[in-house]
C-alpha cells in the first residue's frame, strides 16, 4: 500500500469518527473546518505531497481531491440527515387543539348600528343619500310642517317629551323630510336614521328611546308602486330573497294615501301557528309609509302638480328583532356583554 493510500485511510477513519460524533449543525461545521477548512487536514495532506515518494506524486493531487469531494458529500448527507431528524422530532409533536384559544381583544358594533348599516348600504346602492339631523326639534318640524296643526288629534299619537312650549325631543324622524326638502330641490332621495323619543312605558316591545329610519323620494312621476318596489328590495336585502311585502291602508296626516307596511315572517313563513315572531299570522309589521301629502310638498315650496313622492318611517329596533331573533327590545339599552358579543 502506498504511503498516500495509508494517509488517506487514516484521514478517512478520523473523519468518519468525527462525523459520527457530530449531532448538531454547529458540530458539523466544526468537522468541516477541521477537515476541509483553510488549514484543515486535507490542506495539510495536500501540502505534504512533496514529501511523498516520487512515483506517488503525479496522481496524488487528484486522489486527495477525490477524497475531499467524497468527504464533502458525506458531510452534506450527514447535514441532511440531521435536518430530517430535527423535522421528524418536531413533526412528532402534538398538542391539544381543543384547548381554549387565547382570546383577541375584539371590538364590535352595536346591533342597532349593524342593522342600520345594512339598511343604509341597500339604499346607498340604490342612489339614496344618508342625512342626519337633530334630536331636539321645534314643533314646527315635528308637527306643523307635517300637516299636523296644533290641536290635530294625531298629535296624541306622538306622546312627546317637551323641553319648552315649542321645543321637544323628536318622536319620529319625519322632521328630516322637511329639513331635507327645504334645503334641496327635487329630485330628492334620502334616508335619515336617528334616535327618537316617546313617553312610552318600557316593556318587551317599547322603549322611550328608540331609533327610526326615515325614507323619502320625491321626483316627477313617483308613485306607490315605487315605494313597494323599494321596500320589497329592502326586505329581501335584510331578511332573504323570498320576502314579500304587503300594504294595508292606514292614516298619517303627512301622507295620502297612507299604508302600514308588513313583510312576511322570515322565521315561519306563515306555516307555524304558534310563531313567536308573527303570532301565526305570517306577517310582521314594519311601520308606516305613504305618498307625501300635497300640503307637505307645498309647505317646502314644491309643486304637487309636477312632483310626487313617497316616504316611510320604520323602527330600527324592530328590524333588529326580526333580523337577529331578539326577544325583548330592552336588551338594546342594557348592552349586556354577552348580547354584544353574540351579535357584534
Amino acid at each position, binding site marked *: 500500500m502506498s504511503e498516500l493510500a495509508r494517509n488517506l485511510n487514516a484521514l478517512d477513519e478520523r473523519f468518519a469518527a468525527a462525523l459520527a460524533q457530530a449531532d448538531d449543525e454547529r458540530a458539523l461545521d466544526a468537522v468541516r473546518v477541521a477537515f476541509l477548512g483553510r488549514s484543515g487536514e486535507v490542506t495539510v495532506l495536500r501540502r505534504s505531497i512533496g514529501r511523498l515518494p516520487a512515483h506517488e506524486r503525479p496522481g496524488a493531487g487528484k486522489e486527495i481531491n477525490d477524497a475531499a469531494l467524497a468527504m464533502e458529500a458525506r458531510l452534506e448527507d450527514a447535514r441532511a440527515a440531521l435536518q430530517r431528524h430535527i423535522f421528524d422530532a418536531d413533526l412528532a409533536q402534538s398538542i391539544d387543539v381543543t384547548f381554549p384559544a387565547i382570546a383577541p381583544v375584539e371590538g364590535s358594533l352595536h346591533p342597532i348600528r349593524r342593522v342600520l348599516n345594512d339598511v343604509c348600504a341597500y339604499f346607498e346602492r340604490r342612489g339614496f343619500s344618508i342625512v342626519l339631523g337633530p334630536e331636539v326639534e321645534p314643533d314646527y318640524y315635528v308637527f306643523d310642517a307635517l300637516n299636523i296643526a296644533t290641536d290635530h288629534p294625531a298629535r296624541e299619537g306622538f306622546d312627546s*317629551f317637551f323641553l319648552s312650549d315649542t321645543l321637544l325631543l323628536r318622536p319620529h324622524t319625519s322632521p328630516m323630510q322637511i329639513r331635507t326638502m327645504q334645503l334641496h330641490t327635487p329630485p330628492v332621495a334620502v334616508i335619515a336614521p336617528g334616535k327618537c323619543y316617546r313617553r312610552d312605558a318600557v316593556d318587551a316591545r317599547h322603549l322611550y328611546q328608540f331609533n327610526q329610519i326615515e325614507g323619502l323620494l320625491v321626483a316627477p312621476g313617483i308613485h306607490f308602486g315605487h315605494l313597494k318596489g323599494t321596500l320589497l328590495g329592502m326586505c329581501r336585502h335584510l331578511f332573504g330573497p323570498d320576502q314579500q311585502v304587503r300594504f294595508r291602508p292606514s292614516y298619517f296626516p303627512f301622507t295620502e294615501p297612507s299604508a302600514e307596511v308588513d313583510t312576511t315572517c322570515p322565521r315561519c313563513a306563515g306555516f307555524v301557528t304558534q310563531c313567536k315572531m308573527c303570532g301565526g299570522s305570517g306577517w310582521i309589521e314594519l311601520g308606516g309609509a305613504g305618498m307625501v301629502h300635497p300640503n307637505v310638498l307645498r309647505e317646502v315650496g314644491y309643486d304637487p302638480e309636477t312632483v310626487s313622492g313617497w316616504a316611510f318611517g320604520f323602527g330600527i329596533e324592530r328590524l333588529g328583532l326580526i333580523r337577529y331573533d331578539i326577544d325583548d327590545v330592552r336588551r338594546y339599552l342594557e348592552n349586556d356583554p354577552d348580547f354584544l358579543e353574540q351579535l*357584534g
Partner: protein
Amino acid sequence: MRVPIGWLRDYVDLPDDPQKIADRLAMLGFPVEQIETRPVISGVVAGRITTLEKHPQADRLQVASIDIGADAPVVIVTAATNVAVDQVIPVAVAGAHLPDLTIEPRKMRGIQSEGMMCSAQELALPGEWFEDGIMQLDADLPLGSDVVAAFGLSEAVLDVDVTSNRVDAMSILGIARELAAAYTTPLRAPSFVQPAPTDAPAGDLPRVTLESADCKRFIAQRIADLPAGPAPSWMRIRLALAGQRPVSAAVDVSNYVMLETAQPLHFYDAAKVAGRHLVVRDAHPGETLLGLDGIERTLDDRALVVADEREALGLAGVLGGAASQITATTKELLLESATFTGARVRRMSMALGVRTDASSRHEKLLAPALADAAAARAAHLLWALGATVYAPQITGAPLCAPKAIDFDARSVERLLGFPLEDAEIRRALQALGCTIEPLAPGHMRVAPPAWRTDLSIPADLVEEIARIVGYDRVVAVNHAIAPHTIESHDFHVEERLANALAALGYREIVTSALHGARLFDILRRAGLTPSHLSAEVRNPLSEDQRFLRYSLAPGICEYLARVDAPMRVFEIGHVFMRENGHVAEVPAVLFAFTQEPGDEPAWRDSGFLRLKGDTQALVRRMTGVTPTAARDRRTGAHPGKSAAFLIEGREVATCGRLDPRAEVAFGIRRPTYVCNLYLDSLPDLVIPRYVPRPKFPTTYRDLALVLPLDVESARVAEIAQGAIGSLCIGVHIFDEYRGPQVPPGRKSLAVRVTLQRNDATITDEQADEAVGHAIAALERELGAQLRT
C-alpha cells in the same frame, strides 16, 4: 274599540268566520288587535214563568213551571229570589251546554228539575252589570226561541283600531258601512228619521243660546214620560258585549246611540235646568263644576260649558255635571246632540285631565249631520220604549253638504302606479257613500257622504279607491333615481369612527340619553361639579328621565359599574346643554375601558399609555394626522393623568384616567380610562401621500439620560431632534426609570436616536458627531447627564 260581530250583522251580511272579517278590516285600514271568542253556549231558550210555588220540602227553594213554547211546560226547582210569575227568562233545558256545566234533569229534594234558569253570569256576561239573580228578558221574545242566537251571545267581539281621521268609524255602524262597501253588499242602516212628535201641547220647550263659536250645531229635544226600569235586554246585552255597563233605559239609549253612530249625546234632567234654557258659553273664571265622575273642578275661560241660566251644567263634549244628571226618578229629559270644535274639546280635555268616550269622539272632526241623525235615533228608541217625544229644536249654522272634489281619474295612476277605469273608480267611491257627477271621460265631481269629514283633496279619494279595490293591487316596481347632490358625509364619518373603534377592540353600546337627578348626587359625592347646565324635560315619564345628558361619560360609567368586569366600550350619540335660553345639541364620541389594577410604580400608568395609543391611532385613522398630546386638567379626570390632543392648535380629544373619586361614587371597582373625541373639531381626512425612504441604511445610538423629574419626554425628543436636524429621522423614548440607581429628584430615560443620510451611507463618525450635538443641547437646556 270593541265591536260585537252579532251587532254588526244587524247592518250587513258577513262571513261566518270572525278571522275573515278581521282580515278584511285590516286591509281596509282597521287593524283588529284581538278577536275575543265567546264560550260555546247551547240549549238556552226563552221561557215564561207560568206558576211558582214553594218547594214542599225546602224553605229556600221554589218550583217553577215554565212555558217554553213546547207542548208541555218545563218544571224547574230554583233557589233564585228575583223570580216571579210572567217573567220571561233564559232557560237552560236538559242537554244544554253552559260555559262551566252541562244541564241534566235531576231530583232536588224529591222534585224532578228539568233545567235551569240562567243568570247573566251563566251566559258569560259580566254578572255584576245585570240583575242579581236570574236574567230578565223582554216580554215580547217568542217563547222557546234560542236566546244565544237572538242576542248574538256566541259571536266573537273584535277589538278594532280606528285611526284618528275616521271618527265616523268609531262606531258599529261605521265599521259595518266599511264592510258593506268592501263586500259590495247592501247596508241595512237603522232609520234616522225623527218619530212623529207628540200632538200634546208644546208647553215650555227648552231654549238654546250659542254664545261661543266653538259650538257649531246644537240639537235640543224634550222627551217626557220616560220609561221606568231597565232598557230592553237586547240593548243591555249589546252594550255589555261592547264593554259598556248598562245603567237605566235613558242612559243606555244615549250610550247605545253613541256606540252605534259615533255621535255622543247628553241627557239633562229637564227639571234641573233652570229656565229650561241651555247656554253654550266660555266658563266664567273661578266657576266650579261637580262632574259626573264626582270630581269638582274650578274652571277658567278656556273651558267651554253648557249652562243653564244659573250655572254650568257640564263641560261641553267632555263630561256632564252631577247636578243635572238624570236619575231613576227623572220623568222628563232634555236631549243634547251637538257638534263642537274638536280643537277646543281636545284642549279642554287635556287641560282638565279628563278623557271620556264622548271627548275622544268630539275632539275629532265629527260631522254636524251626525248630530241630527243621532238625535233622531235616540228619540226613536225612547219613543219605542213609550216616551213622549217633542219636536227637536236645532240651533247653529244650517247643514251644508261636504265640499265636492273635482277628480281627475289619472291621479289614481299618478299616485298608485296603476290605472283604473272610470267605472271602477265610481263603484268604489259610491260604495263608500260618495255621490258622483260625471263631467267628462276621466273627470268627475265627487261629493263625499255627509258623515265623512276627512275627504277634501283628490289624494284622499285615491286612498279611498285603493282601500276598496285593495292595496294588493299596487305593483312593486323599481325607479331610476336621478343624480342629486345631497351629502352623506356626517353619516360616513360616524360609520368610519365606529368601525375604527371596533377595530381598536372597543364594543359599541347605546345608553339612555335621559337621566335623573341621581347623577348630580353622584358627582357631588365625588366632589365634582357638572361641566354643563342640563336641559330639562318638562313632562318626564319618571324622575329618572328628567334631564338630557350633557356628556356620554356618566352613562358609560354607570354601565361599567354595572358590568363589573374589565370592559372596553364606546358610544356615539348626541349630548345636550342648556345655554342662555336655548338647547345646544352636539354629536359626541366617548370610549373607555376598565382594567384590573396592575403592579406598577405610582409614577407610571400603562393604562393611560394604552388609552393614549388608542386615541392617537383613532385620530390618525379619522384625519390622517397624528395629534400631539399635552398635559390637561379638567373636571372628572385624574388631575395628573390626563391629556389633551391637538391638531394645529385645535383640541380634538381629551383622555385620561377617570378621577378615582368618581370611580368610587359611580361604584366602578377598577381603574377606568376615558377618552372624549370632539367630532366637530376633527379635521377632514387628509389622504396620505406615500414618501419613499432613502435607500441608504440607517443607524442608531441608544442613550441613557438622567434628567430632572419634571422634564417631559416630548421635550427631550424635541430638543434632540432640533439639535441634530434632518439627519435625525426619529427620537424614540423607550424606557423610564426612577429609583436608587439615579440621584434623588431625577429620573433616567432610555432614548434611541435613529439617523440616516439621504445621499450616502452614514458613517460611525458622522453618527457620533450628530448625537454629540444632541447630548450637548440636552445638557444645556434640560440639565441632562449621560448615565454611565
